[in-house]
């Protein structure tokens, strides 16, 4: 494996910390009673898009591991791994975007969202349930339904939160241009 740059290492650490804080302490009530919507996947998609698949995978892995760890309900490896897979796929899907150079136009938004939708589907409808069945022999219909629900919610949140964050970040990068004062 190529040596990671210090910046990537720090991005993984801070990305994981953000993932943890958003996943653990930020609760947005969802229409379904007693369930909350997690917005951390919007963040993870952003980290992956800016810092690449390795950063995405590791930030997801570490962040999700810490969430499980802090709840003390045992580390749910199947879902932890699925988060890592999502980060990795997202990083691969957005390889050609240059958000950190300030480019995130319509084409970028489409790539980002198609990428995130596919990555979520693979992670939650394939990886997580299959691992659940392998590890815990859980009933297939239960885990697939959980997976599909999770995927849909995550796709919606990533589409809104992730896209907005990417837009704001790409705009925040100073670009030379002629700014005129208006009267």
């Amino acid at each position, binding site marked *: 494996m190529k040596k990671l740059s210090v910046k990537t*290492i720090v991005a993984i650490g801070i990305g994981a910390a*953000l993932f943890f804080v958003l996943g653990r302490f930020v609760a947005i009530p969802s229409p379904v009673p007693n369930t909350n919507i997690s917005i951390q996947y919007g963040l993870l998609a952003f980290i992956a898009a800016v810092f690449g698949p390795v950063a995405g995978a590791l930030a997801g892995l570490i962040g999700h591991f810490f969430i499980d760890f802090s709840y003390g*309900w045992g580390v749910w490896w199947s879902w932890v791994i699925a988060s890592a897979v999502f980060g990795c796929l997202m990083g691969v899907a957005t390889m050609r975007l240059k958000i950190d150079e300030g480019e995130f136009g319509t084409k970028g938004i489409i790539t980002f969202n198609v990428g995130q939708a596919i990555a979520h589907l693979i992670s939650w409808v394939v990886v997580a349930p299959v691992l659940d069945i392998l590890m*815990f022999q859980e009933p297939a219909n239960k885990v697939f339904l959980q997976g599909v629900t999770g995927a849909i919610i995550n796709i919606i949140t990533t589409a*809104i939160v992730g896209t907005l964050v990417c837009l704001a970040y790409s705009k925040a990068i100073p670009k030379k241009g002629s700014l005129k004062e208006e009267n």
Partner: protein
Amino acid sequence: MNNLFNYIEKESPIHGLTGATKLVCLLLWSLAAMTTYDTRLLLVLAVLGIALFPIGRIGVKDVSFMLWFTLVFLVLNTVLVYLFSPQHGTEVYGTCTYLFGLSGHFAPTAEQLFFQLNYILKYFATIPFVLLFVCTTNPSEFAASLNKIGVSYSVSYSVALALRYIPDIQKQYHEISQASQARGVELSKKASLVSRLKSASAILVPLILSSMDRIEIISNAMELRCFGKNKKRTWYMAQKFKALDYVSMIVCALLLVASITLTHINGSRFYNPFK
């Protein structure tokens, strides 16, 4: 100390083990519990796990919050399994013994109840051990331990950084969210889902953008102090292995071996009393 993960500083044989040992044991133990569905082994693991608590001088009171959480989660999952697949036990064990003279899709069968008992046992086989790990492992030692068991030091340090900056980011999130609330951002149920998500972004954008600055400054600070200079690095918090470390690892390794052997003897991961 950083008490996010409920680390409880005490003197005990378990606290005395190195972080690396505990991490290896956690992995071996989880793997053992994961592979098997053999009731007997699960029972052994559950009892052993609980028995370790007094040795680690951790009481129920110390973990009550986390335990409560887990139990709710467990009950929810058990109910879900039954609702979705009341016949799962029959599929697994190959027989169908209706109880209480009932029959039909949702009627209880001995196999289903036994499966669900195993399901619950499986939780009890892993959770006490994880809780114990959480309470007895100093987060500072965590990164050094990862490096010791073969994870590259770069990735290990990412873990350390995450642990270091979680409290800072949490505080920052809280401040930003209060200021946004004053301006009218609401995450409560009154608004529609989409507008709630947009509101969340109003908090997230400043948080993430300032985190990007933070990433830049921290990586400069680390490079200025020679991070990444050598192929290896030493750790201030690393500890040397002692006899008890080796013993613990061997015991956990044996548990994994037992788990695999049992699966082999049973011919499946399940212990089947119905045949």
